[in-house]
């Protein structure tokens, strides 16, 4: 069995491109070109240079001594929080903006949940001098105010999505509508491994730099290139895809994907897609999604804006269905506790998304000799208000 994409754009039974005809030319243009463009030496050179000098890669693989002591295992944090703009999202936007340039696009749109992808998109648009429109759910605009401010500073137009749950799903709908209305000069920078093929694969490849680095960095630390576990939170799944990528086919490396259980998996207010989801179509992709019996997409809930999504990328649906990855669900409270713990033990304020991944150490025991690499997908600056209110600091 392979855990990678096949030539038709599917991971097992998941994936594909379930898009309206209006999007066909754009998506098809991308599908035909993305691999070719990505393999061009000039593309590779520009991409890698920007990752190094602009994003600040490689991001460190940091041995978290006090956290490891507490949980009696070896925990390494992959520090995507140190990237320019503060999360893994920029790896992808750098790649896509270069792609968009080569496809001659002049106008960029994006959806955003936590605002990290919106900021990362606004950033690369400023860098390249391209117009940028970001769709963001009304609720997310309120709870991720610092990122809204950043997008404005960077010259992006932020448009509030007021339909549905007013979060990431609805922002994505709006972005797709915009793309339908602007079929020629606009590139849609999707922010996760979701959407129609080739997006999930393209985004995963741009993010795969993360696991590539883990391999050689682990060699420096532990004199081996494979961890025992790789742990990542999953909203759409891009940081997990990046962290898992080069280990996908090596089943000696155990993969743990962490979803947001909100107020509890069975509370009716959660975003634990794999457990609660059924196969269906969302945003152009066949995957697992939370829906009614009638096929209406359910409004998800999580304290974390970046995990508050009723679907999951098709790669992850496949990892779930095939059992290749273990899926865990973490509640708001568990995540918030783990987030504060990292502050106190390691002096790192994590994004609440990443706090979900950190929370598994209270749920699952590892062996003292296990090497556990955890994707610290982003920093918590955007979440300070939520933390402060939660803890009444």
């Amino acid at each position, binding site marked *: 069995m392979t855990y990678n994409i096949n030539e038709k754009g599917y991971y097992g039974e998941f994936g594909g491109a379930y898009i309206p005809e*209006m999007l066909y030319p754009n998506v098809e243009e991308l599908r035909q070109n993305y691999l070719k463009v990505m393999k061009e030496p000039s593309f590779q050179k520009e991409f890698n240079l920007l990752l190094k000098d602009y994003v600040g890669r490689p991001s460190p693989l940091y041995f978290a001594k006090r956290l490891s002591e507490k949980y009696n295992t070896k925990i390494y944090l992959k520090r995507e929080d140190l990237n320019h703009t503060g999360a893994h999202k920029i790896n992808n936007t750098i790649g896509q903006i270069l792609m968009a340039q080569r496809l001659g696009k002049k106008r960029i749109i994006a959806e955003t949940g936590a605002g990290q992808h919106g900021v990362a998109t606004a950033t690369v648009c400023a860098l390249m001098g391209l117009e940028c429109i970001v769709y963001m759910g009304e609720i997310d605009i309120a709870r991720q105010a610092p990122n809204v401010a950043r997008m404005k500073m960077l010259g992006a137009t932020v448009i509030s999505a007021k339909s549905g749950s007013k979060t990431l*799903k609805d922002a994505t*709908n709006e972005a797709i509508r915009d793309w*339908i209305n602007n079929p020629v000069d606009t590139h849609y920078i999707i922010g996760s491994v979701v959407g129609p093929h080739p997006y999930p694969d393209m985004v995963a490849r741009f993010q795969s730099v993360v696991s590539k680095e883990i391999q050689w960095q682990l060699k420096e630390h532990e004199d081996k290139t494979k961890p025992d576990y790789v742990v990542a939170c999953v909203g759409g799944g891009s940081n997990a895809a990046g962290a898992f990528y080069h280990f996908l086919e090596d089943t000696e490396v155990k993969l743990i994907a962490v979803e947001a259980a909100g107020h509890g998996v069975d509370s009716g207010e959660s975003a634990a897609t794999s457990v609660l989801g059924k*196969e269906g*179509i969302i945003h152009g992709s066949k995957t697992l999604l939370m*829906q009614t019996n009638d*096929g209406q*997409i359910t409004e998800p809930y999580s304290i974390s804006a970046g995990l508050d999504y009723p679907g999951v990328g098709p790669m992850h649906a496949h990892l779930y269905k095939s059992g290749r990855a273990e899926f865990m669900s973490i509640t708001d409270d568990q995540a918030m506790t783990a987030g504060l713990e990292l502050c106190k033990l390691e002096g790192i304020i994590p994004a609440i998304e990443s706090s979900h991944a950190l929370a598994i150490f209270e749920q699952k025991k590892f062996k003292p000799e296990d090497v556990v690499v955890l994707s610290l997908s982003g920093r918590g600056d955007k979440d300070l208000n939520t933390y402060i209110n939660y803890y009444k600091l």
Partner: protein
Amino acid sequence: MNRINKKLNENKKLLSIYFTAGYPNLDDTVSIIQNLEKSGVDMIEIGLPFSDPLADGPTIQASSTQALINGMTTEALFKQLKDIRKTVNIPLIIMGYFNPILQYGVEAFCKKCSETGIDGLIIPDLPVNVYNEQYKPIFEKYDLINVFLITPQTSIERIHFIDSISNGFIYMVSSASVTGSSSGFGEEQINYFKRIANMNLKNPQIIGFGISDHNSFTQATTYAKGAIIGSAFIKHLSNNGVKDTADFPNAILNQLT
């Protein structure tokens, strides 16, 4: 012969109207259909509401949301339409997104359509190739016409391909845009209409998106077999309710009432 094909064979320009099932009230579906037929509408697209209708503009989107709040479901729609063929003769098409259909089961859905007297389907997010590779036999088994869209950006080859696998009409999107976002046609669109008309496709074309009044209807049908109106009718319903449904097609067709 499928009602759609029969209708397309008539020597007239066709007016097709879209509305969202369950809007403005859950049980308006049947009377809207009946009233539309009575006032001379040639074909009806019954929208199966979806929570995330990403190819629709704000008007239809809002009507879908309301319809879902009103309690519309796939099951409920079929129940409402159970006896529709006792009173209505014009072609009826269900327009819906793929996920609710997938959850119902594609074959079960087609079977139910056929039993109900539905003549065709428009599923914007079921792409041509997926239909072709996986679902064509089912649609054919139940004598359902699946309608595909083309846009100004669709390549000539692709139009020919879509024409080749279509067996009813081609839904010609007037401009690449979600529904309800423009009004009246400019030179660019007219050129596109002419271009397609000159291709001599085997399937007639019906133009949709951006048609809202007598004028744009006349313009569109100069170059195509018919035209579909959606958002403008939904707006009419939300402003006037269902009792004056007939006013709308009358105004489009410029009939005196």
